[in-house]
């Protein structure tokens, strides 16, 4: 069956005027990608890449300067409220909640604002409280919950809306390792049990590796990759080598490696590099030959997604984000 597009982001442009400085910032510059029904898409990029701006444009909280977002074929900036029937979002996690209301009161209030009565929502609320292990906390104030619990509640609030699409902006930002893991496991279960279309923006690699099938990487407001996560890793894997040597490298050799290979890692007698051009391997050989370094063996190595990401970001970092002074 043909995969069905549910969201279409077309040549999105967003320019902010900085308040004090008279400077224009091109936060998003021609971003285009499609999202298919039922998929989990990772929107990846370093800080300031334009992830939040893209997410908020999809939600209709920002009006783009150019381009458009279509949700189920509907232009979201022209039919904002209608499009919101299909979208819910967790934008700033725990800040998106009423800290002086209890867990349950938050769920009831937000669903009420979508025009659903408390009675109608009760079953689904209990279901979500169970799913998120929040049942025992349902009558506690949000202010007394841990950061991780608050994050889970924010996700529960978004899920309660029962929309086709769920947008998560940096769902693990500011969480410690353990809580981040917990939230990730939570999301995995949701993906499995609820079969929603999910867009996750993040610069947390384990989130992408654990959850996403496909990733759109943006940097400086531009899309620099739009690929299946597996494919990206494979692509880089085929070019990653590990040299095992018996001697130590000289400073000069280290400098030469640094200059020639954007991604490298030197660890005692092992050098890991990623090749870009065909003759990169010869260059590496030459560097080693220069000091008659003895090579014990050369292996293909595995790369993790983090390395792939860093590599792509480095390539894309030439793009300017500051447009002009007005």
């Amino acid at each position: 069956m043909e995969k069905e597009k549910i969201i279409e982001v077309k040549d999105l442009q967003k320019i902010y005027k900085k308040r004090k400085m008279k400077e224009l910032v091109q936060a998003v510059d021609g971003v285009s990608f499609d999202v298919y029904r039922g998929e989990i898409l990772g929107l990846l990029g370093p800080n300031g890449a334009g992830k939040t701006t893209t997410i908020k444009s999809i939600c209709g909280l920002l009006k783009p300067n150019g381009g458009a977002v279509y949700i189920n074929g509907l232009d979201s900036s022209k039919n904002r409220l209608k499009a919101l029937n299909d979208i819910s979002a967790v934008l700033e996690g725990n800040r998106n909640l009423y800290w002086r209301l209890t867990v349950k009161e938050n769920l009831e209030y937000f669903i009420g604002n979508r025009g659903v009565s408390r009675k109608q929502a009760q079953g689904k609320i209990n279901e979500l409280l169970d799913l998120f292990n929040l049942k025992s906390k349902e009558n506690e104030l949000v202010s007394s919950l841990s950061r991780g619990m608050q994050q889970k509640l924010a996700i529960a609030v978004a899920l309660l809306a029962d929309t086709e699409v769920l947008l998560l902006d940096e769902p693990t930002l500011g969480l410690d390792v353990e809580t981040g893991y917990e939230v990730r496991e939570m999301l995995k279960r949701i993906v499995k049990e609820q079969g929603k279309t999910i867009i996750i923006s993040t610069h947390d690699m384990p989130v992408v590796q654990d959850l996403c099938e496909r990733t759109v990487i943006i940097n400086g407001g531009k899309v620099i990759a739009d690929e299946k996560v597996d494919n990206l890793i494979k692509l880089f894997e085929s070019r990653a080598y590990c040299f095992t040597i018996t001697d130590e490298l000289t400073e000069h050799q280290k400098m030469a490696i640094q200059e020639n290979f954007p991604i490298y890692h030197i660890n005692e007698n092992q050098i890991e590099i990623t090749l870009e051009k065909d003759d990169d391997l010869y260059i590496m050989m030459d560097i080693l030959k220069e000091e008659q370094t003895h090579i014990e063996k050369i292996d293909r190595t595995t790369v993790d997604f983090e390395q792939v990401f860093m590599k792509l970001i480095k390539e894309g970092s030439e793009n300017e984000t500051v447009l002009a002074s007005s």
Partner: protein
Amino acid sequence: MKQFWHLVNANTRKEFIELKRYYPNTISMILTFYFIFLAMLLGIHVVGDPQMADTNIQYVIVNYVIWFFMLMTLQDLGFTILIEAQRGTLEQLFMSPKGMWRILLARITANFFLNGTIVIFLLILSMLTANQWLYFRVDLILPIFLITTIGMVGIGFLLAGLAIIVKQIQSFLQILQFILMGLTFVPLSVAPYLVFAPFVKGVDMIRHVMIHGYTWTDFTALDYSALILNSIFYIVLGLLVYLRCEKVAMEKGLLSQY
């Protein structure tokens, strides 16, 4: 319509919960009202010519209650925007497919209902305590008051719109109560052009009922149409300005700022 009722319901619950949870605030508000009403009622016997004082005090109390509701209507939506922006919940409210303006309308309806209940209860309680009873034409004053309120809700929306764009509007919202107090006490006969200002016509008609004993038939068709058209004009204007401000805020990325 039914869905709007759910909005009102949810917002009434939330506001009620917050009244309970911030009970020191709530209790001090209740006590203030109680003692002000009591003082005014007991004043009926103490001050001057009892015959005249009676109508005057009744008028002062009714005026005070109206002023309170006007002020609430005017400030509530603006403060709602500011507080929700500070808490970080504003964008989440904007994610409702019902639209933020309906949520705001539900909020003001909820607060009107909650505060109305409190104030009416306290008014009756203080009348019982003082054993002094107010007699005024509720059947006349209430409809005039409600129609006037619709125009005030419009001004409330206008201010809410400004609050989305200019987050430093707080002090202005507070100054409003003095402007409002001034306008409440200026009779239209002194400044006839104020008939075009929001709510002045309504307050003037209530004054006629309270002091000059006007009834339904004493007002002309012109009076009624001025009252109604004034309110329609300001609610439409307010909503249009508000929606325009929403759009500007989305263009400039102001929803997440505070």
